[in-house]
């Protein structure tokens, strides 16, 4: 491998992601603590997250090892395999919590909807990279279709969060690429109609309930509203300087639900206060900006679009998860990258960033 490649690596991005990963592990250590009569016991979430992170780093290195432009060739096959897996889910999938999302391969379970995110991202980048002109109706529909087909399969699982995320990533990429003026205007008009359609046809009762509760948590303080209320109390009670590491009562006494996964940042907010939260938000923004700089510096459209897809992948997750935890968004099961516990999510995150680093490394190479 060319030694020059290393000098082009986006070191800022690497630093941001490792820092976030460490903050995540440390925060999970605290979020794993549970105070019982006998004292504090700590479950092993942070250790597992640490190990998953190491796996993620290996995957990241793998994702950096080959030329990212190979991905363009793999886009369609990968997409088709993913579709096939998604079709298998209703037939061979196993139910967890009333939703069929997993397929068992014997030695491990995979979540085809996770693969769908990647597949749509790569194929979207390939299709958008064909030329530089803003999209007309034909191209727009073509790109949209590769998002809608897997989404239709995912939403029946049901998995609203992933469906939403895929559409938002693809939408972000399309917006970045540019739309013809009339297409953009029509789309803006169509969004409310689509929202209404989702409300009346596409959503399950519990999902509708979540949105209603979001609008007024006190409606249902013991049920769906409980998450929102407790999470606001956790964050708010951190005040300016926080309660200190490991001192969060909302989390340690288990008032805060889902404190390892979706609401992990509430634990952070409770213990580190406003100062810590601003630092974390700043870190996330720097992280996004370094991905952004890679997208701008990339010397080919495919690489750039790919990185923009990754940018939106992270942007939407940060926006939706943080928004949910601080009560600006309804409760949707989307984790916060690096902060929430989740093995496969961590591996996917690292892998995607490997691709970004890959693009940044090879921004001056044009040989085949």
């Amino acid at each position: 491998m060319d030694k020059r490649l290393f000098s082009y690596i986006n070191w800022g991005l690497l630093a941001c992601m490792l820092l976030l990963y460490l903050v995540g592990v440390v925060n999970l250590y605290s979020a794993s603590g549970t105070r019982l009569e006998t004292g504090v016991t700590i479950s092993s979430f942070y250790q597992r997250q640490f190990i998953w992170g190491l796996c993620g780093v290996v995957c990241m290195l793998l994702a950096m090892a080959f030329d990212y432009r190979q991905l363009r060739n793999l886009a369609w096959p990968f997409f088709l395999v993913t579709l096939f897996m998604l079709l298998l889910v209703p037939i061979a999938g196993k139910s967890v919590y009333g939703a069929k999302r997993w397929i068992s391969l014997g030695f491990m379970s995979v979540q085809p909807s996770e693969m769908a995110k990647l597949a749509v991202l790569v194929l979207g980048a390939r299709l958008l990279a064909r030329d530089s002109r803003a999209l007309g109706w034909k191209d727009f529909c073509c790109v949209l279709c590769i998002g809608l087909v897997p989404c239709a399969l995912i939403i029946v699982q049901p998995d609203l969060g992933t469906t939403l995320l895929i559409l938002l990533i693809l939408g972000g990429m399309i917006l970045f690429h540019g739309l013809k003026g009339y297409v953009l205007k029509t789309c803006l008009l169509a969004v409310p109609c689509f929202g209404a359609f989702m409300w009346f046809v596409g959503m399950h009762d519990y999902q509708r309930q979540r949105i209603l509760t979001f609008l007024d948590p006190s409606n249902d303080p013991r049920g769906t509203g409980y998450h929102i209320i407790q999470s606001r109390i956790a964050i708010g009670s951190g005040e300016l300087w926080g309660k200190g590491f490991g001192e969060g009562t909302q989390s340690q006494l288990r008032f805060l639900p889902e404190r390892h996964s979706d609401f992990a940042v509430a634990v952070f907010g409770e213990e580190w206060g406003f100062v810590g939260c601003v630092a974390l938000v700043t870190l996330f923004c720097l992280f996004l900006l370094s991905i952004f700089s890679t997208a701008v510096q990339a010397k080919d459209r495919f690489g750039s679009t790919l990185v923009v897809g990754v940018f939106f992948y992270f942007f939407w997750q940060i926006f939706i998860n943080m928004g949910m935890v601080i009560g600006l968004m309804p409760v949707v099961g989307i984790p916060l990258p690096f902060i929430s516990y989740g093995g496969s999510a961590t591996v996917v995150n690292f892998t995607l960033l490997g691709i970004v680093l890959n693009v940044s490394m090879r921004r001056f190479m044009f040989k085949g």
Partner: protein
Amino acid sequence: MSRKTESTGHSAQARKGIRSWLKIQVESESYQPPRSGVILLQVLVGLLFFVLVTRFWYLQVHRGAEFTRQAQENRLRIERIFAPRGRILDSRGKVLSDNRTAYGLSIVREDCRDIPATLAQISEWSGIPLSQIWEKFRQDRFKVKPFEPLLLITDIDFDLVARIESEIYAWPGLEIVVRTKRSYPEQDLFAHVLGYVAEANEREMAADSALAMGDLVGKQGLELKLEQQLRGRKGLYDVEVDAHSRVLGKTLREEPHGGHELRLSLDIDLQRAAWEALNGEAGCVVVMEPDSGKLRALVTSPAYDNNLFAAGISQRDWDALRTNSRFPLQNRVIQSVYPPGSVWKLVMATMLLEHGILPRESVFCPGQVKLGNQIFRCWRRGGHGSQDLMHSLINSCDVYYYLMGERLGVDKIEEFAKACGFGKPTGIDLPHEKSGLVPSKQWKRRRFGRPWARGETYNVSIGQGYTLVTPVQVAVFVSALLNGGDLLKPQLLDDAPREVRGRVPARPETLKFVVEAMRRTANGGTAKVVGRKDADMGGKTGTAQVVKLKMAAGERRLRSSEMEYAQRDHAWIATWGIKDGKSYVVVVMVEHGGGGSSVAGPVARKVYEHLFGPAAGTKVASSQPEASGLRPAPGRTD
């Protein structure tokens, strides 16, 4: 060979195909990202930062204190620590109202896996029907939170506690709770004075924030009236809990303070002596110190066992008490009103002296007075002959008071009687005290819409008609005669100060005159039953008619024993006794007892025997029939 080249050629072709598939396509033109896209991404990141930081500021800085408080409320729960209720003692320190430990069984719904089975098990242990336990459970389930204990049965006996204790591990959610219960060792003897406590009801809890579910609160008697002193103040624990209400630790925030121990002025032995003297008759005895107003005995009979209420009275017991024709729930000393009969003549005599009637002024008593076509009789058929004020009291001559009352008029009687404390409560520290009634012309017009009749003044003058008093009012008045005219609040507490609530509007000479009349009445008049040589005694009897007896001329008055119980006269005696510098006022009232001297008198005498020791030589001749017999002697000796 050719085959080999063919195969290598074939593989080379395949390799070429794969290579071409893997060939990286490179855009020829120099790539520039779309300008609008670049701006979009930057704006999005900026927006994200701005929105999140603003929101964090709002939650953590702007409303931080509020959420901190909510987090505290989440985490800390307040648990009350029971404060023992103050005991009540008699004047010499004997316990009248005590606390004892009682065991109960309660259920924490959240921890209970199978409520129906658990309730069935409780029923099996306790022998209480399952339906009753279910009813209690349904009644209270919304009053206590799921993680708080709901008390299902109380007062389990110790053997059963031991058995439940050994099996309780199999029934999660059940716990044995220790509470204190009130007990009244003297039962009926002090039931009306002490009253009782029971669990606070919803109304009481709404009115008093210090009360919680299951707390005991005074419902009757002193327990009710002095609730605030007896109760004490609960302590508080800060209990740290987690989201599952599991208790993690306790810190004491406020220590409990037990209630005040109250020492009564009542004397348990005197109380018992008076109780025994009544011998089960419906009636009451008041013993009061005329100088201080302190009550030394306050007996009403029949009574009830107040332990029944403290333990939670059963419907059957309650119905039995409520429907009992002798009204055991009634505190006759303060809650029952009676016509005072001739005892009223003490009030009348005081008034007459104050209104210028001279003691030497005489009235001739022929045995009856005619008013229109009505005949008003003196109790003595043959008449008393010429009577002055002193003799009218000693002989209890009705005719004297008929005529004198007529002379002053009912409105003057009303004014004076009210000034003597009648017609209003005495202020004793017991609930539901009655006022009695002092009638007037105005009152009758308001009450019946009819004018006052002259004959009614006759009746009022001898303590009949509409006049109604409580026994304690009589005791307060007689005390005032002795202490110089102060109408004192009857005190039940040993350390209570002397409290003057009014004054008898009479000169000291007047009071001395009436006292002297009482002395002479006890020394040979109608109240001689209480007279004794070793002490200075005074008294006045009364026999109050309950129904107007229609008697044709010449017809014999019926004896009490020949009448229906409810139509028999009330027997009164109001007395005082002074020995060795100690003075007491004793008022006895026996409901439907018959003659005052024959029925109430012996009761009072027994009380004095307890106070002053056995009488060395009574002035009561052994021929006095009522001294030995329970039931009245022939005729009225009023």
